[in-house]
């Protein structure tokens, strides 16, 4: 019964999120009792959250995408340079997302046509795309302060009432769309069966190759969108911009309750977990703990929650739990 409750998309993660906020309200009241810190979360969480939505779908299919930091960089650069040189906004936006989508498409082709496991293939593509962006951009950084004040800027990353970051609304709409895609669309169903059992997917007539290519293209497009939002928010581009998301995005997906074994995904869980990761980071610093520790704690929470999620899914899949269970039965 309790287990069933925790299997509801996002339920257990939401509880953890609330507990975490309460803890930080006690340890860092000056920051966590005001509204400002929450507004800053809602400004910074959307880009990694949008990437994590794509990676959630990838994980559902039993695959992995580690290339997104370079896709973010590429999209940011394309957006920034088009705006700077040609003074275009929406065209730059669509070009940047299209570039992300194209990079994802190539990732998908490499994975399916060369048969390289996606974890390895996208790790290689992380370097390949990263290198390519650096070469093409000549290693420069861009500052585009002029973007501030454009219609696009206020529409995508403006502040409602001067305080509420509008990108949060876009990110939540995106989450709603991805939830529908996974849970209500035939594409999502195909991904669920591919991740559940590839051989079964083939026997029921799912074209796994085609679906995986579409999947990686979608993941690339979402990373591209995240790159644009990031560049709009910071009004700058530099090559290592997306790199900081590597840990937070992957952690968000699996802390959120998406199965590390594939075949099941929790979109709402991903949304809360993306906040959890950011809140831990900010909360520890605000509590006076040294910045270096944040990575340690995120890594720790990552392992802990992945284990907890695996136990909720199937206790026998965790060797330690299985050993303890047999010991208890014998003892």
């Amino acid at each position: 019964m309790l287990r069933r409750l925790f299997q509801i998309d996002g339920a257990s993660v939401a509880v953890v999120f609330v507990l975490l906020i309460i803890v930080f309200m006690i340890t860092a009241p000056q920051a966590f009792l005001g509204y400002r810190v929450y507004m800053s979360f809602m400004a910074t969480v959307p880009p990694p959250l949008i990437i994590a939505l794509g990676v959630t779908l990838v994980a559902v299919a039993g695959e992995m995408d580690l290339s997104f930091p370079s896709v973010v960089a590429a999209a940011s650069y394309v957006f920034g340079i088009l705006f700077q040189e040609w003074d275009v906004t929406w065209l730059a936006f669509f070009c940047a997302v299209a570039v992300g989508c194209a990079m994802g498409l190539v990732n998908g082709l490499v994975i399916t046509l060369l048969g390289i496991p996606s974890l390895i293939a996208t790790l290689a593509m992380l370097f390949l795309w990263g290198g390519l962006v650096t070469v093409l951009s000549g290693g420069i950084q861009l500052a585009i302060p002029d973007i501030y004040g454009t219609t696009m800027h206020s529409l995508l990353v403006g502040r409602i009432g001067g305080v509420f970051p509008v990108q949060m609304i876009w990110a939540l709409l995106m989450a709603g769309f991805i939830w529908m895609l996974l849970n209500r669309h035939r594409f999502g169903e195909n991904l669920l069966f591919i991740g559940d059992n590839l051989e079964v997917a083939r026997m029921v007539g799912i074209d796994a190759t085609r679906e995986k290519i579409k999947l990686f293209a979608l993941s690339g497009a979402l990373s591209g969108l995240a790159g644009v939002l990031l560049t709009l928010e910071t009004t700058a581009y530099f090559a290592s911009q997306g790199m900081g998301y590597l840990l937070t995005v992957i952690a968000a997906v699996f802390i959120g309750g998406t199965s590390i074994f594939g075949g099941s995904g929790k979109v709402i869980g991903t949304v809360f977990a993306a906040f959890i990761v950011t809140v831990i980071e900010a909360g520890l610093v605000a509590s006076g703990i040294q910045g270096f520790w944040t990575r340690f704690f995120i890594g720790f929470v990552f392992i802990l929650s992945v284990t907890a999620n695996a136990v909720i899914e199937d206790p026998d899949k965790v060797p330690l739990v299985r050993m303890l269970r047999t010991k208890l039965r014998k003892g």
Partner: protein
Amino acid sequence: MGDQPIVRLENVGKAYGPVVSLQDITLEIGSNEIVGLIGDNGAGKSTLIKIVTGVETPTTGEVYIRGEHINFSNYSVQRAHELRIETVHQTSSLGTKQPLWRNFFVGRPITNALGFIKVREQKRISEQIMRETIGFRGAGIDVDTPVGRLSGGERQGVAIGRAMHFESDLIVLDEPTVALALSEVEKVLNFIRSIKENGRSCIYIEHNIHHVHEVCDRLIVLDRGRLVLDCEAKAMSYTELTDFLRNLHQGHEGETKVAS
């Protein structure tokens, strides 16, 4: 349709790399015919039906469905479904983490024009299949139950219920009784009889010769990838059939002795 066979294979062969699993198979499955496919493990039975049902592509030979030549570059499980061929595979073809309502319709969900699944309708029909076709009663199983929580027999029931729901002209059953209790085996045999009564056809793969001989119109025996017998079931008594199969075995043992 008339007397046109539903499926016709001509000199079909299939090799998995160096492993030849089918060689030079020519056969027909007629309309309203129950065909028993017999053979040892590894004889090539599953391979044969995977070719017919669009899962595998043959290495050599031609396939015709209702007289229409099959071009394998665009033949698929989907196309086989469109041509009204249903399959219950030997190994489970169910996603164990997925709920029953998805498993009934996977590969061909009921969707709107944008591809969004009509979940309520699928659940309603799934419930109907469970109640009327499979006869699941209570026991905490509903349309939202993941297939992984069902017993082997229940899973087989789901796969058969799925095949029964999509009324097809040809239903392929690959060792459907393996995981079943005796009473459940009887249900499967009744299902096969109902296929016959409804004017449809069936390929029935089964190791229990008694069952095959009882329900089938025609018998096909495969031996190490080759077709060694294709005859009317009436033309052979049960004893003649078992003698024939025993002789096949002894033939093999003789060969291996000579070889060694």
